[in-house]
């Protein structure tokens, strides 16, 4: 099923309160971002974080890219096991097991 992804909000203006390395609450915020995007934060912390993110385009963009990362992981599927490999693996396992088997 293909679902149309809503367009991300455009960031036109420069950040009003950019984070400075080593300053502010970068680490505090960074620590909570997965819990935030997984909806696991307590309501008050979530509201505080949302307020901050709303005022900080940098954090908003960071969170968007973290969400994109999780979304890609969730939709990334490996190639299926071929029927030949399925049969070969079964044979190999049974052969390897035989010496200590019950018979």
């Amino acid at each position, binding site marked *: 099923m293909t679902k149309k992804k809503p367009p991300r909000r455009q960031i036109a203006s420069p950040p009003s309160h950019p984070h400075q390395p080593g300053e502010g609450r970068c680490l505090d915020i960074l620590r909570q*971002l*997965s819990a935030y995007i997984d909806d696991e934060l307590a309501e008050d912390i979530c509201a505080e974080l949302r307020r901050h993110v709303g005022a900080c385009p940098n*954090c908003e963009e960071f969170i968007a*890219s973290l969400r994109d990362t999780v*979304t890609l*992981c969730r939709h990334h599927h*490996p190639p299926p096991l071929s029927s030949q*490999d399925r049969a070969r693996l*079964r044979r190999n396992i049974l052969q*390897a097991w035989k010496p200590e088997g019950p018979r």
Partner: protein
Amino acid sequence: MPVTPFAKTPEAFDKLYREHVDLVYRYAYRLCGDMESANDLVQETFLNAFRGMNAFRGEAQVSTWLYTIASRAAMRLRRKRKGAPERELSLEEFIPTSDGEFRLQIPIEGLTPEQALENKELREALDQAINKLPKKYRIALVLRDMEGLSAKESAGIMGLSERAVKSRLHRARLFVRRELSGTGVTQEHSRSDAKGWRPRRSGS
């Protein structure tokens, strides 16, 4: 659903194998990143499962039991050819040091995840990013974000607390995000630009 303990017979093995080989293979492939290593891990997992069949009491789902065996086997298997050395990922290393780093983007704007992953380069970049993760973080990411298990289930499989799983998952996501973000890629990149996107070659 409770599971009847297995008898250690070829018939029981066949049933176990038939019903779960696709799940184990998918998990193994996601952990290993290539077919050959995934096949090795599938063999190791089923062999260990078969040897331990008598000890399985059906208290957990069979799939959870197999995930646990596969995860342990993956931790034991030596890395072949590629992958990152085992190391701790600290949160500090993911703090952006400039506005540019904050705003690095994964260029999938306007695309569904399925469409984005049709891009071979993006798919390969994602594979590489996951492969570069130290194993213990990779297992957390694969169980939670790829296999779709809960934190509680993942914690049981990994033998950790839920809190520890969440911490590893978070660091793993930050790592993959950083690896996937192309240098200089901005919001202005269009859909067609995204298709021609080249992954950043990180020195980390």
